[in-house]
């Protein structure tokens, strides 16, 4: 988490509501955000796995690429297939640099007249100028700082949201549509960062509190904070920019080769294509894997990873206690020849080796909405 003096922290449109709900507020990416509410992180985590909870993710950057060649222009900056996105469909992709490193990971949604983007809060100041510089022709970026974003996540999300927006449950996973939610004009996507079924709901900031209150009025819907968001995404094997991804990490090293579209591989026309496509054919030197410490002690970001004989092979980039796993879980980067599931490693925690195994991700199976 990034710390900043309190006076420079920004607030989301829901700050008053967070305080009314008894949130513990902490600095995160330049914002004052709820870490957890009165029940604590464990209870919030478990509630998302069993029921439904609302996260305020209004700190994230909302924007769009507009103009006739929006999709093709965005493709000059990302390795994902954007032109091939059908109306209302969304895709996880990356802004890459010339070395194939990740400038940011983002969601891109094909809307009627634009490509909607959700970028990391911590990267807005880098990403928006990067996009503005990179877009040519008639394509340009539009920013939506006056919009809030609420994530409703968990297996009970669809039933809860259907009471406020009957059309929401018709959305397939990774699709979005404009719709009224409690009579508020929103853009709703079926997506999230927890591994569970759920929605992200964008609305004008002025209606954010009303929307949140209407969601909390649904049976079984509770608030959840950044603490649970982190433990949920870690169990789901999802990356956090700044920890698991950065400008020196490629999508292939991050074990996210599936995000590089087949047509894009053939066209080779995105930043860092030579490095990324080279790693696709030759295999990268290091790769992101799941790490399961064998005891009960968590191994956190920064812990080194070594072979039992002490040879360093990598480091943990995210780690902690997985409430659903009921034990420590982590992910990190290891040398390719130490990346096979079952490989026995030591995580170096407080200068002591802690036995751990390489395991497949995710730790908790995804339960996204399936239309079949």
């Amino acid at each position, binding site marked *: 988490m990034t710390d900043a003096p309190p006076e420079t922290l920004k607030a989301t449109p829901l700050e008053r509501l967070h305080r009314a709900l008894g949130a513990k507020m902490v600095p995160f990416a330049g914002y004052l955000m709820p*870490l*957890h509410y009165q029940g*604590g*992180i464990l209870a919030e985590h478990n509630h998302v796995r069993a029921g439904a909870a609302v996260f305020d993710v209004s700190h994230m950057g909302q924007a769009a690429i507009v103009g006739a060649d929006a999709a093709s222009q965005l493709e000059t900056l990302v390795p994902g297939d954007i032109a091939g996105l059908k109306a209302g469909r969304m895709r996880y992709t990356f802004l890459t640099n010339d070395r194939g490193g990740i400038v940011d990971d983002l969601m891109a949604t094909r809307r009627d007249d634009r490509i909607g983007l959700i970028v990391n809060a911590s990267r807005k100041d880098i990403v928006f100028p990067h996009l503005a510089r990179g877009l040519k022709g008639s394509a340009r970026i539009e920013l939506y700082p006056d919009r809030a974003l609420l994530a409703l996540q968990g297996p009970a999300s669809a039933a809860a949201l259907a009471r406020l927006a009957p059309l929401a449950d018709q959305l397939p996973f990774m699709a979005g549509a404009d719709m009224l939610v409690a009579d508020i004009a929103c853009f709703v996507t079926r997506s999230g960062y927890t591994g569970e079924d759920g929605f992200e709901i964008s609305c004008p900031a002025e209606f954010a509190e009303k929307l949140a209150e209407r969601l909390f009025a649904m049976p079984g819907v509770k608030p959840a904070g950044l*603490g649970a968001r982190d433990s949920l995404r870690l169990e789901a094997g999802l990356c956090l920019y700044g920890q698991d991804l950065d400008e020196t990490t490629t999508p292939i090293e991050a074990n996210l080769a599936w995000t590089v579209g087949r047509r894009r591989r053939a066209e080779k026309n995105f930043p860092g294509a030579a490095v990324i496509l080279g790693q696709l054919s030759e295999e990268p030197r290091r790769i992101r894997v799941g790490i399961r410490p064998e005891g*009960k002690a968590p191994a*956190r970001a920064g812990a080194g990873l070594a072979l039992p004989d002490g040879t360093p092979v990598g480091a943990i980039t995210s780690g*902690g*206690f997985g409430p659903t796993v009921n034990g420590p879980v982590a992910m990190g980067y290891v040398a390719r020849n130490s990346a096979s599931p079952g490989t026995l490693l030591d995580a170096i925690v407080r200068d002591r080796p802690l036995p751990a195994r390489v395991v497949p991700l995710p730790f908790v199976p995804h339960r996204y909405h399936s239309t079949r």
Partner: protein
Amino acid sequence: MTVRYTKEHEWIRIEGAVALVGITDYAQKQLGDIVFVELPAVGTKFAKGAQAAVVESVKAASEVYAPAAGEIVAINGALADNPATVNSAPEGEGWFYKIKLANPADLNDAMDKAAYDAYVGGLH
């Protein structure tokens, strides 16, 4: 029997030459859900202020320092299976370790309950 408190939010129940040590209710509230406690081995000797234990909450790892010099004579093994006891009974069943004091005067600067409560009250 005397109970003393440190600015690092430990409580110390002094029973003659030995002391029972744990973290305060304020500390467990700040840490949140505790998922792992790393305790020292019986027989380990610590200088005052040395790192003696680690408490892991869902959020983060926090170090716990020896409030006085001495030798560990017992640890609360029950915390291995039930670390959440530190949340539910921080100043009782959630004790960490028992230390044989090398120098009881080490605890002269520790606070009594009234002073500790005032100290905590002054923290935002």
